[in-house]
């Protein structure tokens, strides 16, 4: 199948949001997506982008039709005080009907190329333990499950708790 990988542009925010929602649906968490196209635009294409995005595009089915965005990877850079810069893969998704053609593999390869070029020492991500297809996909390529191997657990403070801590005064 012919496809193209390219950097996302401001005009792509509606496709990005569509795929974010499809991925959330796959994770049975569609109701959790609160982000809007406007926020994606401000956050990703302003002076200080908070995220970066690669898109996978296929040609329209009929001539004259616009290309269709059928996959994406959203990432940003984080820091491990033990080894340095890391590339954090936040979202990674190819629409079901376009899987099995190596598109996901190629996206991951481009991301790892980019990680190496930008002096990252690792590429990391969070995945749900019942997401077997994804976990196998990553492990086949050499990823290590640090939750299993080293007991790392992800904790979260949601808005209320966060703001409560922000308001508490020093003892």
């Amino acid at each position, binding site marked *: 199948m012919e496809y193209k990988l390219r950097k996302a542009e401001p005009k792509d925010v509606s496709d990005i949001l569509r795929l974010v929602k499809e991925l959330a649906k796959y994770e049975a968490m569609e109701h959790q997506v609160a982000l809007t196209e406007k926020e994606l635009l401000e956050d990703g294409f302003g002076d200080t982008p908070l995220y970066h995005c690669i898109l996978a595009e296929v040609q329209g089915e009929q001539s004259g039709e616009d290309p269709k965005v059928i996959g994406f990877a959203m990432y940003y850079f984080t820091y491990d005080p033990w080894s340095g810069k890391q590339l954090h893969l936040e979202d990674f998704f190819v629409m079901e009907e376009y899987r099995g053609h190596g598109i996901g593999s190629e996206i991951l390869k481009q991301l790892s190329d980019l990680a190496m070029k930008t002096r990252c020492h690792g590429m990391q991500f969070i995945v749900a333990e019942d997401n077997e297809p994804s976990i196998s996909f990553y492990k086949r390529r050499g990823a290590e499950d640090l*939750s299993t191997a080293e007991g790392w657990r*992800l904790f979260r403070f949601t808005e209320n708790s966060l703001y409560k801590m922000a308001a508490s005064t020093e003892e």
Partner: protein
Amino acid sequence: MNFKIRAAKKDDSKDISRLIMELAVYEKMPDRVMISYKELERDGFSSNPFFQCLVAEVPEENKSKEGHTIVGYALYFYTYSTWKGPSVFLEDLYVMPDFRGQGIGKSLMSKVAQVGKEKQCVRLQLLMRDWNTPSLDFYVAKGAQDLTASEGWHFLRFDGEALDKLANEASID
């Protein structure tokens, strides 16, 4: 005991590096620390820093046995949730054992939360080892939820050699 929480400066890098190593020892992984204060200087104090850092400082008269006045730190950065937007990730939080129990950890947390709030972050996340009960209790008491337990999230990584290999190989599927 008096203490002050302030933004770290480039000059603090040696102290931060010292405390990073102490935390790694506590995590039982000292041999995993590959970077020195030089990398911290380069990565945290340029025009485009990859992390932010707060330090806890005590006055000269309360310095540690070895003569240090920087006795704790919090290292964090901004991440992005495609569901909710900007978030804070607390990578490291550590206070030297002799200076615990005085509210320094709590103040560091509050300050990180304050900064997060100012930047309109909607959540703060962190990773913790499952055996680290003192820390688990500290965070849970402040409202943190264990998402690995409740939602089964696992942390995966491609490291060094595996990343290299992935970058060099053609697709496997």
